[in-house]
């Protein structure tokens, strides 16, 4: 009797389409696209807006050959510009407005699509696995690699759409089609390469947060490698996905093989991720879980200790990342002077502007980038509150005699201490890097203060994120807008020709960029006061509202 009922069932199974490791990926992809529709649109729109606005602005600022050559004179051999922009492909041999646009823009656009791709991949793979719903999805007939494949196709779609829109946008802004297409191809393939790298990180890391951390670290190292490679003219540029992307030399005698190289690397790295994925358990990284301690240590006494413990990993990650980045960046300072010696025009430019040197300008730009990273840490530290609330973990805590104020302040305090610590260490690291290579030991203290001076401004950005979360938790994510704005203002204000009042909306703009400018205390005091006010306003809001639940 049993066999009689089993047989037809088997027959039914045999009639099903054959199932393999990627069975079901189209449905997962559809689900991802549905969940992502707003996020992806915002990312794509941001990339396109950045490119189009820059394109329009560049064609106004550098309309003719003379202005382009003026730009080329000031930019070539200026290490500060090379690190923060590009190596100036084509500016010497065949200067054109397109070459100027690429030099100013390609680095940051690639960083942006890289960021977009990294976050997209970890969101849909490692972080998703931490939820119960992923298990539900996995229990349906989907293959082991279905989620990975769907995620990569998602990344491909988003990057292709972004790149296509960028190509159309640049052409519409009056730039040549060939260069625009080269730029678009570079963007799309670089984005995919970062997506693939992030997919590997998702297999290795124990948590979604760690996977994102690894992805961001790779992005930072890529930035550094190409910076060092471009400044010193070494092969290091070619070890960096960003360097390979910029290497397409759009608008300057295009090298079409670089996007092909990126694409090939992306395919290879994706294959590596698939091999790793086949070897690990669902919901676990490659690194196995250690047992914890059976009882808490003596110092684990309350919300502050818990906040410190919870933020420890992230703090350590940011600390090491920023110190490493700062030390290498600082060490490039001596190159700045050597490059300057090749460029009499630029040398004269710096000689004329009293009290400032190429080294100072270079280091001030290094400190600005470090300050932006510091703000990234500050905002993510504050938004930890949002994560704890959304996951429902805070309920158990606030059901004990712990006030909301105390719980929230604990996380703020840990983040604040972290910010000061990271700023001090990062400042010292740039200073030491610069002092060792230039032989000017006074730079150590100077750079320490230069980065510490940014702490109050970072406080304002983190404070805004805190207020948003405290009053309207759904809007907490908008806390990142402040950082994006400060980055646009800090890195692209001149390129975009932004009006002064817009520039002044960035808290970072009110910080004297030491050592290039003199010290000025008013801005710092104002911002410290603003931070305190924001924290107070946030605490008032948080003690009045409902606690969100899982």
């Amino acid at each position, binding site marked *: 009797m049993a066999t009689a009922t089993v047989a037809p069932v088997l027959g039914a199974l045999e009639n099903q389409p054959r199932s393999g490791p990627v069975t079901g990926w189209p449905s997962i992809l559809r689900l991802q696209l549905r969940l992502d529709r707003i996020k992806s649109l915002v990312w794509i729109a941001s990339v396109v807006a950045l490119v189009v606005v820059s394109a329009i602005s560049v064609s106004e600022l550098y309309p003719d050959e003379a202005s382009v050559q003026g730009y080329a004179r000031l930019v070539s051999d200026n290490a500060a510009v090379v690190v923060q922009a590009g190596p100036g492909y084509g500016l010497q041999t065949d200067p054109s407005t397109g070459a100027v646009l690429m030099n100013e823009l390609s680095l940051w656009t690639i960083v942006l699509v890289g960021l977009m791709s990294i976050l997209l991949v970890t969101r849909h793979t490692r972080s998703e696995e*931490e939820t119960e719903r992923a298990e539900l999805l996995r229990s349906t007939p989907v293959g082991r690699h279905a989620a990975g494949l769907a995620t990569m196709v998602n990344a491909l779609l988003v990057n292709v759409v972004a790149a296509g829109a960028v190509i159309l946008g640049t052409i519409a802004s009056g730039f040549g089609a060939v260069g625009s297409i080269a730029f678009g191809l570079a963007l799309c393939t670089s984005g995919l390469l970062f997506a693939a790298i992030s997919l590997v990180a998702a297999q290795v890391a124990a*948590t979604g947060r760690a996977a994102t951390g690894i992805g961001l670290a790779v992005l930072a190292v890529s930035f550094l490698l190409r910076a060092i490679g471009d400044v010193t003219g070494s092969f290091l540029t070619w070890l960096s996905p960003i360097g390979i992307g910029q290497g397409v030399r759009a608008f300057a005698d295009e090298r079409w093989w670089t996007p092909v190289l990126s694409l090939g690397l992306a395919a290879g790295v994706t294959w590596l991720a698939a091999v790793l994925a086949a070897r690990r358990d669902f919901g676990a990284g490659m690194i196995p*879980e*250690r*047992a*914890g*301690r*059976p*009882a*808490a240590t003596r110092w*684990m*006494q*309350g*919300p502050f*200790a*818990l906040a410190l*413990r*919870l933020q420890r*990993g992230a703090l350590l990650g940011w600390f090491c990342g920023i110190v490493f980045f700062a030390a290498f960046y600082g060490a490039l300072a001596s190159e700045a002077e050597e490059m300057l010696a090749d460029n009499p025009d630029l040398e004269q430019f710096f000689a004329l502007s009293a009290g400032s040197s190429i080294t100072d300008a270079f280091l001030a730009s290094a400190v600005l980038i470090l300050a932006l990273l510091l703000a990234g840490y500050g905002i993510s530290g504050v938004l930890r509150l949002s994560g704890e609330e959304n*996951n*429902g*973990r805070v*309920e*158990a*805590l*606030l*059901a*004990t*005699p*712990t*006030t909301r104020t105390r719980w929230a302040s604990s996380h703020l305090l840990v983040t604040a201490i972290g910010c000061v610590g990271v700023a001090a260490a990062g400042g010292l690291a740039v200073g030491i890097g610069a002092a060792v290579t230039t032989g000017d030991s006074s730079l150590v203290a100077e750079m320490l203060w230069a980065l510490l001076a940014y702490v109050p401004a970072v406080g304002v950005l983190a404070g805004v994120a805190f207020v948003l979360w405290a009053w309207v938790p759904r809007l907490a994510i908008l806390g990142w807008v402040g950082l994006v704005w400060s980055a646009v203002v800090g890195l692209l204000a001149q390129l975009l020709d932004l009006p002064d009042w817009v520039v002044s909306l960035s808290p970072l703009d009110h910080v004297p960029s030491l050592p290039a400018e003199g010290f000025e205390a008013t801005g710092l005091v104002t911002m410290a006061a603003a931070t305190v006010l924001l924290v107070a306003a946030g605490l008032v809001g948080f003690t*009045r*509202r*409902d*606690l969100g*639940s*899982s």
Partner: protein
Amino acid sequence: MSTSSAITVAGLHKSFGSTVALDGLDLEVRAGEVHGFLGPNGSGKSVTIRILLGLLRADSGQLEVLGGDPWSDAVELHRRIAYVPGEVNLWRNLSGGEVIDLLGRMRGGVDPVRRAELIERLDLDPSKKSRTYSKGNRQKVALVAALASPSDLLLLDEPTAGLDPLMEAEFQDLVTEAVGEGRTVLLSSHILAEVEKLCDRVTIIRKGRTVESGSLGELRHMTRTSVRVETERPVHGLQDAPGVYDFASRATESSFEVDGEQLGEVLGRIAEFGIVALTSQPPTLESLFLRHYGADGGGPPVQERPA
């Protein structure tokens, strides 16, 4: 408000945007009792408990917990309240033991002997990282944390949803002991056997409103007994008798349900047919529960229940 009440709630309202979660809920929990809090999914049990903890703010209604206001006196009250959430989310990087100690210390200290005893009785491995715990084990962590330090009031939101039967029995012992020590327990639960065993009084809610409240005895009186009887001659004429439901008969065997008030009269009429054997089942909480849940949609209609 009466001082012998641990919790007094009257006319409680709470909306989230256009969703009405609580619509005039009443709840009274007397000091020293185990009070069952029943209701279908989404009826507002968890929202009520979160309001009692001051995690959510009530829109309107009277509200008193241990003589204080849950919103403004939250911290003071929390010294005397222990809570086991319905959905236990722990810090993934911390071990169960660390979570127990952390929460216990924040509530004013853990009794190490009690902690060890609870861990032993609930068969919990405290050295595992929280992310590796199953649902039931996460619940055990929350239970140990709640019971390891002194408290006057236990708020338990479906605390046994993930426990195995052995652990459930252990849990029932723990609750009984807690009440023996003079604590008050509010137990939201879906496991009716558990509620029948543990609770002195129950409150049943539906769509954010209280539909029934009282001791189990009182509630039983309002519900139906199911009867199965074998008689010498086939029973007839009972089909449409007042207070009789679901009458079914096959030759000399009949089964039906009967309202508490009509029980005596109906049995008298059956006696006329010569009773050979009779089994009756006392009204269960389940039948009460289903009657209210089934009232308009939501649950299976009472009439379709197999006799």
